[in-house]
């Protein structure tokens, strides 16, 4: 017979080859081919083909059940569910406790701070305010001559209320500090005086009692208070009987009419305890247009876009300026969405810190993927065996995902615990000016965020190693030694991850460096006074015994005298304003010889109303003329004042101001004589202050403030005298509270709190990032040295010196570092300007900082190279080659 033997149907054969598990594939197809030939001989080719197809389809049909059986043989627990994989993953990780612990701790260190920071950032910046329809609420500010927003006067607010049809309602808020004259426990309370519709504008109703009404908001009828929930719970034990009871505030009886709901958070007075009606009418002198001490809060009508409301306010402002040209410095008003405006000061810092935390998270992710990869390479044999036994690649991926999920969940749980522990510390260190800190909790949205991170971590740590593992395992199954050939692919991924880590670490290091530099620059700023060895506190004089200004001033003078008796005290004085403490008290000053066309353009200066020698106590330099003397404080004395250098310059330019006459609003006399010029003091903050200030005896002012700051200069070691000073002041009148007892150094330091916090966080993040990056470099090099032991041995046998070996390994490490640093520098150049709001005296791309951080990372990289390099040097050529 010349005819070629019949062949089995090729397509059926291909189907079988594809679907059958590897270990029975040959046996079954071989059997079928054998049968085919026999059947073709006895019953014809057609019948044989039919039978072959039948068998092939039957085998395909069985395949699903087959896999289960085979999996059982491969040593996995039965079932295809994720639960089995998870159980197996836990078992696998328990066998590698060091690896698992390293991964979990790394993750926790990254997730912990991120959780804490997200807990702060989310409610402060993003979550809607706890008011009705908060997106319609806004602040209205006037515009000053420099284009900056400023507070407004009552008459202007009334005009807005009457004319701005785009606004559903407008409320006025003034700050209020008052003394609760409780014989057992006198206290200084913080709060606001508000127009009757303030809470209605916000859409907040009292939880207990009633809201203010128009009847309460009339002159002479304002002696009612609404308490915040916190104050009510703390002071009155949440007793509902407090409604209708009477409090003595500044010696006057106030009736408690309501208590605000628990979640109420005041954006204007963050630590508000009491609210009382404003009781203004436009005819009162303090309700004037230039009496800009009120904040305007508005609700924009639902059907009006903000832009149109803004346009209407600008139009109104133009009309007001036309009607009252001397009352406004510039045309225009600002309508600013409430939440955005209230958080604008803290937003850059918070977002920068959040960004840093996310960078750390990315580095941790890269590190864990790297660890997994390294481990994956060591598990090549395991994967190869499983693939050879018929495990589908997808099955291996699922397994690795399960391992990733176990690690991520453990890390996430530990991270949340760490975050919960860190959060109170973080909140305590945040500046009190950040609104809504009360709303900060580890809550469901934050936990949801962490859950998302955990899933992302699981996917990254599972999928990255799975890709390489599958490829290598298939190769290894195909031919022995295949893993050697493709190990390079995994190394490349690992190198890329390390480079990424180094780049991110550099970014953090540069940021931390910039912040550290800013802080040192800031603390090096001359505040204009000497804060060392100065004690300060707030003294108050309120109640029936201080009805007259004379009594108040007498109290202050006696306090100063009592403190000066203490040995170790050099000097003492009081002032209504304290530099860097947050006090803001500014007045427009006009000179007699420099009349202004528009008095609203008069330069504003901080007014220090002093008793005792404030200038000498604070060691403010006297530049020209003389200091104030005790004679100047007498009622009969001619009205005199000191001006700061900056104020003198902005009024008189280069002329000497000594002997000139100025008009100070609210001073007793129409004209005040300038007797001296003193150095500028940083009042508002160390980084931004115009330095314009005015010092005059408190007796020369229209009234005596019911509270003032007492400053005490001591010989040395101020903290040791705090107690004695406090006792001396309290001995004058024990019924008056003494608060805010601090050293002036602490006041200065606190004024930089936000930057200090940012620096502390960035600094610790940068350290963590560097440690992780170093670990990454070490891991890659150690793995590479281990994989190349044979090659290194060969080099040694061929005459390479230990120096060559060192160069080989260190060169590899530094090459990775070099690429990472280059990418990091590019990233830093592109992104550090986001930090600009936090920087002071240093540019965001300061070459010294960039260079220093790069050098620092190289040093770290070199250190990380040391151990692997040492190992390479110690490789014994004979042993390595014999292996």
């Amino acid at each position, binding site marked *: 017979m010349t005819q070629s033997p019949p062949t089995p149907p090729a397509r059926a054969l291909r189907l079988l080859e594809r679907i059958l598990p590897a270990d029975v594939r040959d*046996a079954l197809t*071989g059997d079928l081919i054998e049968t085919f030939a026999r059947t073709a001989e006895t019953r014809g080719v057609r019948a044989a083909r039919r039978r072959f197809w*039948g068998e092939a389809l*039957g085998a395909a049909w*069985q395949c699903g059940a087959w896999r289960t059986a085979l999996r059982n043989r491969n040593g996995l627990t039965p079932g295809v569910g994720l639960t089995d994989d998870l159980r197996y993953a836990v078992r696998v990780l328990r066998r590698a406790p060091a690896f698992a612990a390293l991964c979990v701790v790394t993750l926790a260190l990254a997730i912990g701070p991120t959780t804490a920071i997200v807990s702060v950032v989310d409610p402060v910046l993003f979550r809607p305010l706890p008011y009705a329809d908060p997106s319609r609420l806004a602040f209205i500010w006037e515009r000053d001559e420099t284009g900056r927003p400023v507070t407004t006067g009552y008459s202007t607010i009334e005009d807005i209320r009457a004319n701005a049809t785009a606004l559903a309602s407008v409320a006025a808020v003034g700050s209020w500090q008052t003394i609760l004259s409780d014989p057992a426990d006198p206290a200084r309370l913080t709060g606001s005086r508000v127009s009757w519709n303030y809470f209605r504008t916000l859409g907040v109703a009292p939880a207990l009692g009633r809201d203010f009404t128009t009847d309460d908001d009339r002159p002479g009828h304002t002696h009612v208070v609404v308490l915040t929930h916190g104050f009510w719970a703390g002071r009155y034990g949440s007793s509902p009987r407090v409604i209708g009871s009477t409090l003595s505030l500044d010696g006057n009886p106030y009736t408690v009419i309501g208590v605000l709901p628990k979640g109420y958070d005041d954006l204007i007075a963050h630590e508000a305890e009491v609210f009382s009606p404003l009781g203004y009418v436009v005819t009162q002198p303090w309700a004037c247009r230039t009496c800009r001490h009120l904040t305007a809060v508005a609700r924009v009508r639902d059907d009006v876009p903000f832009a149109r409301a803004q346009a209407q306010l600008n139009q109104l402002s133009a009309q007001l300026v036309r009607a009252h040209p001397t009352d406004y410095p510039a045309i225009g008003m600002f309508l600013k969405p409430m939440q955005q405006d209230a958080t604008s000061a803290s937003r850059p810092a918070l977002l920068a810190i959040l960004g840093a935390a996310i960078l750390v998270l990315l580095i941790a992710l890269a590190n864990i993927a790297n660890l997994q990869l390294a481990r994956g390479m060591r598990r090549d044999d395991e994967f190869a065996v499983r693939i050879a036994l018929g495990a589908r690649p997808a099955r291996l991926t699922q397994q690795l995902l399960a391992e990733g999920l176990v690690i991520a969940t453990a890390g996430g749980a530990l991270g949340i615990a760490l975050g919960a522990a860190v959060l109170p510390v973080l909140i305590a260190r945040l500046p009190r000016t950040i609104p809504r800190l009360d709303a900060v909790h580890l809550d469901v949205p934050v936990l949801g965020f962490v859950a998302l991170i955990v899933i992302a971590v699981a996917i990254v740590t599972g999928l990255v190693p799975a890709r390489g593992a599958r490829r290598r395992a298939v190769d290894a199954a195909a031919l022995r030694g295949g893993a050697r050939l493709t190990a390079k692919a995994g190394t490349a991924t690992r190198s890329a991850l390390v480079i990424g880590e180094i780049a991110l670490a550099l970014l953090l290091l540069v940021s931390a460096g910039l912040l550290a530099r800013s802080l040192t620059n800031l603390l090096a700023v001359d505040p204009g006074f000497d804060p060392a060895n100065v004690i300060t506190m707030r003294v108050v004089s309120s109640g029936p015994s201080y009805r007259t200004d004379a009594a108040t001033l007498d109290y202050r003078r006696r306090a100063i005298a009592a403190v000066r008796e203490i040995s170790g005290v050099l000097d003492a004085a009081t002032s209504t304003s304290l530099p860097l403490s947050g006090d803001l008290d500014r007045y427009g000053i006009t000179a007699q010889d420099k009349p202004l066309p528009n008095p609203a353009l008069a330069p504003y200066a901080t007014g220090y109303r002093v008793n005792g020698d404030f200038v000498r106590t604070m060691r403010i330099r006297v530049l020209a003329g003389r200091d104030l003397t005790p004679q100047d404080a007498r009622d009969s004395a001619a009205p005199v004042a000191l001006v700061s250098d900056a104020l003198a310059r902005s009024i008189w330019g280069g002329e000497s101001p000594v002997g000139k006459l100025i008009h100070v609003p609210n001073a007793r006399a129409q004209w005040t004589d300038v007797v001296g010029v003193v150095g500028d003091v940083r009042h508002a903050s160390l980084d931004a202050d115009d330095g314009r200030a005015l010092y005059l005896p408190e007796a020369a002012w229209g009234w005596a403030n019911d509270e003032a700051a007492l400053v005490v200069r001591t010989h040395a070691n101020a903290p040791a005298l705090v107690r004695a000073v406090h006792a001396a002041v309290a001995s004058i009148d024990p019924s008056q509270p003494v608060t805010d007892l601090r050293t002036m150094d602490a006041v200065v330091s606190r004024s930089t709190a936000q930057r200090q916090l940012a620096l502390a966080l960035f600094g610790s993040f940068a350290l963590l990032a560097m440690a992780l990056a170093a670990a990454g470099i070490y891991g890659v090099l150690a793995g590479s040295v281990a994989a190349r032991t044979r090659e290194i041995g060969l080099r040694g046998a061929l005459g390479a010196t230990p120096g060559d070996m060192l160069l080989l390994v260190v060169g590899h490490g530094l090459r990775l570092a070099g690429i990472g640093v280059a990418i990091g520098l590019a990233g830093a150049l592109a992104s550090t300007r986001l930090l600009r709001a936090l920087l002071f005296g240093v540019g965001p791309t300061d070459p010294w900082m960039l260079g220093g951080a790069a050098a620092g990372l190289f040093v770290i990289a070199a250190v990380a190279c040391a151990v692997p390099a040492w190992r390479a040097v110690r490789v014994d050529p004979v042993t390595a080659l014999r292996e």
Partner: protein
Amino acid sequence: MTMLGELEQVVLLAVLQAGDEAYGVPVQTEIRRRARRTLTLGTIYKTLARLEVKGFVASRLGEPTAERGGRAKRYYTLTPAGRQAVRGSLAALRRMAAGLDVGLQAP
């Protein structure tokens, strides 16, 4: 003791019957000849795989041959446990059938 399924019994007995030549084709042939049932090779191999997991059969690869398109045979033998299982299974059947009408008696 693990009870054998009916299919497992049949396949185990077929492996025994095929003796030294117990790979797919002879096993299928023995079942067709003796039990007068046509099982696909897929079913047979699936059953064998399950029996192997249970430890009742062991397998080894033979040499590839030309008539099989260069594919190796996989030979199966019963393990001691497999023999024990068949014995137990048959004994159970016998005991179940004892004393029943003639014709229902097991071998």
